[in-house]
């Protein structure tokens, strides 16, 4: 009757259920937002909710969201990242073994990246990553009792942009901001930056952001612009980027 | 161990020594033996105090023993063989760790041993007395931990600790070459007093401790302090060995009795 899921949309049977009256409101842990006996056959729950008997109970503070037909989650901002399958993340190699790498993705525990989870990797031919190197990867599994696993290729085995991140600058932002940066359509700050500069960017759902550009000055500018944008409206963000761009273009 | 705030003192500390010094002119006339050549507690010089021994006294320990020699009261518990906490390099043998503590109220003046130097020394001496008797080669990498607490320091503390610890090891089923029994002796004004009481130790000119594996007839630990006339030292060691053999009988009886009651129930 109840199915847990991360981000993905799947098939769902719909009924003539009644949506929770708390949708759109700010909820706190312990709040009972839905009586499951009154709800339809299938309810999908995302982050911040838990089933307790016949009730749907909030475990994290935030705004209760709902998409039709019956998906619920709590949207809140938290700094600490909790991995979910199919999240894209930026991590740092902390340990190296023959079969796998241990990656710090800023989560509750470190993640595993199998040595062969790269496009076209074989025993003989695999990328050589060292402790301290950054990597852009995808979460392939999470389970309560084992470390999350990562892969540097998409479901069909192609690199799809994943892999080691050479050089560049890595910084931490909130997971809320990371989500904004990854959202479609492209958020205001990135659009404004992209209009005036050329740089490479990798954003992880875990709040780690990697930037690389032709000069250190541009790298730093991009990083600052992104960090500054967290509490700005789209218009404010555009103005902020514009003034920063002026500074570098002046000399 | 010291309380915070203003310093405090005990008006009765050191009173025995002061009385003793006021009593007579010098150490020679100290009245350790009465006219009937008996000690203050009525014992003859070569007589040990009655020993009360009991094993299996700590419910959650692998082995344990309580020893009471008149007012000397000691509790020992053994844990292990268990995983060694100290991340030491791999070794074929296990580690024997010994830790002796004195309760704050165990001595005449409170927390006299609080600084820990005396406790560290006792721990070290206990280790030396036991280590050759325990078959550490039978369980690699693990550690056997011996913890002793002196509840009341009534004289010959170390000897009682060693004896109780060896009983606790036996109770824990740790493989040993032999039991270890220990006896100490004080030299007071030329008299040899076996198994001294605390008051006799405070007056002593010298002391000896012998720890013995009685069945193998091997001394595992021995030390002697103070200046000893020739014949006295040899005689003192003999008396201690004799004490160890007597104690051995009582230790074995205690273990037999415990085994009998354990099987009976």
């Amino acid at each position, binding site marked *: 009757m109840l199915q847990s899921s991360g981000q993905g949309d799947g098939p769902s049977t719909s009924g003539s259920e009644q949506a929770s009256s708390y949708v759109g409101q700010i909820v706190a842990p312990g709040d009972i937002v839905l009586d499951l006996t009154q709800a339809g056959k299938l309810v999908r729950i995302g982050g911040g909710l838990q089933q307790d008997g016949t009730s749907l109970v909030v475990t994290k503070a935030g705004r209760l969201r709902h998409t039709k037909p019956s998906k619920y989650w709590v949207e809140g901002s938290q700094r600490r990242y909790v991995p979910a399958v199919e999240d894209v993340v930026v991590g740092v190699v902390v340990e190296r073994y023959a079969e796998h790498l241990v990656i710090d993705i800023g989560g509750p525990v470190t993640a595993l990246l199998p040595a062969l989870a790269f496009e076209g990797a074989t025993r003989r031919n695999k990328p050589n990553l060292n402790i301290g190197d950054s990597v852009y990867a995808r979460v392939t599994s999470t389970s309560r009792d084992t470390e999350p696993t990562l892969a540097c290729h998409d479901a069909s085995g192609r690199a799809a942009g994943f892999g080691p991140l050479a050089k560049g600058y890595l910084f931490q932002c909130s997971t809320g901001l990371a989500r904004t940066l990854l959202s479609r359509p492209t958020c205001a700050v990135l659009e404004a930056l992209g209009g005036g500069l050329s740089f490479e960017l990798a954003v992880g759902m875990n709040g780690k952001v990697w930037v690389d550009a032709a000069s250190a000055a541009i790298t730093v500018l991009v990083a600052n612009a992104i960090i500054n944008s967290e509490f700005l409206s789209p218009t404010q963000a555009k103005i902020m980027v514009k003034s920063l761009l002026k500074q570098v273009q002046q000399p | 161990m010291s309380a915070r705030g203003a310093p405090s003192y005990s008006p009765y500390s050191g009173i025995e020594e002061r009385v003793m010094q006021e009593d007579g002119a010098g150490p020679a006339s100290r009245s350790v033996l009465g006219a009937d050549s008996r000690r203050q507690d009525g014992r003859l010089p070569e007589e040990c105090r009655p020993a009360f021994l009991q094993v299996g006294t700590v419910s959650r320990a692998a082995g344990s023993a309580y020893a009471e020699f008149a007012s000397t009261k000691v509790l020992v518990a053994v844990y292990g063989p268990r995983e060694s906490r100290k991340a030491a390099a791999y070794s074929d043998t296990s580690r024997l760790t010994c830790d002796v503590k004195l309760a704050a109220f165990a001595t005449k003046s409170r927390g006299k041993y609080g600084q820990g130097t005396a406790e560290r020394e006792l721990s070290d001496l206990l280790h030396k007395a036991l280590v050759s008797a325990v078959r550490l080669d039978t369980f690699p990498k693990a550690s056997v931990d011996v913890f002793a607490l002196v509840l009341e320091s009534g004289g010959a503390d170390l000897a009682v600790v060693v004896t109780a610890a060896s009983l606790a090891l036996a109770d824990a089923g740790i493989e040993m070459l032999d039991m270890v029994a220990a006896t100490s002796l004080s030299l007071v004004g030329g008299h040899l007093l076996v198994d001294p009481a605390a008051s006799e130790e405070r007056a002593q000119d010298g002391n000896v401790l012998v720890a013995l594996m009685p069945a193998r007839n091997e*001394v595992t630990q021995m*030390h002697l302090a103070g*200046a000893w006339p020739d014949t006295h030292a040899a005689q003192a*060691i003999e008396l201690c060995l004799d004490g160890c053999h007597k104690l051995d009988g009582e230790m074995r009886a205690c273990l037999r009795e415990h085994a009998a009651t354990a099987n009976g129930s």
Partner: protein
Amino acid sequence: MPGLSAAELSFLEGGIAQDLRNDGRGREDFRSFSIQLDVISQASGSARVRLGATDILASIKAELGSPPAEFPHLGRLELAVEISPTAGPEFEGRGGEELSAELGKALERSFAGGANGTGAAVDLAALSVVEGKTCWVLYADVLVLNADGNILDASAIGIKAALSNTRIPKVEVLAGEGDEEGELELNDDPDECARVSTAAVPLIVTLTKVGRHYIADATGDEEAQMSSALSVAVNEKGQLCGVTKRGSAGIDPSVISDMLSVARRIGKRLLAKVDAEISLAESRLESET
């Protein structure tokens, strides 16, 4: 000790069995030693002792302190051993701490006497200045510069020599008025200084058991072969002043009594030799000044 092969070890043990050690000594022989006095000017007394390759520095520092609470009429003698990290590879870092503590305790047992000060190496009553208030505290510190076995015996020789070299300033107690405590006046004019009687200071003879035999004054290589050892302190009167069993193996009680009488015999010879070396060193010192 690393560095000795099995063949070397068995050779060493075989030699001991035949009363002929690697360096030509018999089982009961000490290595030759030298004493040098007054080597540290700030100390109240000091000596350097070289016993074979073992090299130690002993110093005595006399300071005014408070007497033991239970025995207000006595002074104090505090003993400590420190092993320099340069003394050998095994003493690098904190490696020497355990041995330092063990040797310190063995010295204390041999020099400090009973709880009431009887049988102590020096007359503790003579160190009293104001009963119950002030006394001299003699800090005897041994620093091991190089270790090639038998540190303990060398340390005892060092302390005896350093004590013979010790000068304690004269103290005058100025009468206080009424209830007030008298003040102390120190006079460190060398001619006025008191000397410490070293007649009762014992020496230590360590007998190291290697195989079925025991040897005196073991070298580092020989100590590596030790199963157990008995350190015996002996004084001029032939009294035993302290015995410490070292090493983990057990010893038969009859062997212990043999070892005690052998140690006493060796000790007597050693005492005479050390006394002679000290007077030699003293005369050398006088001729220098």
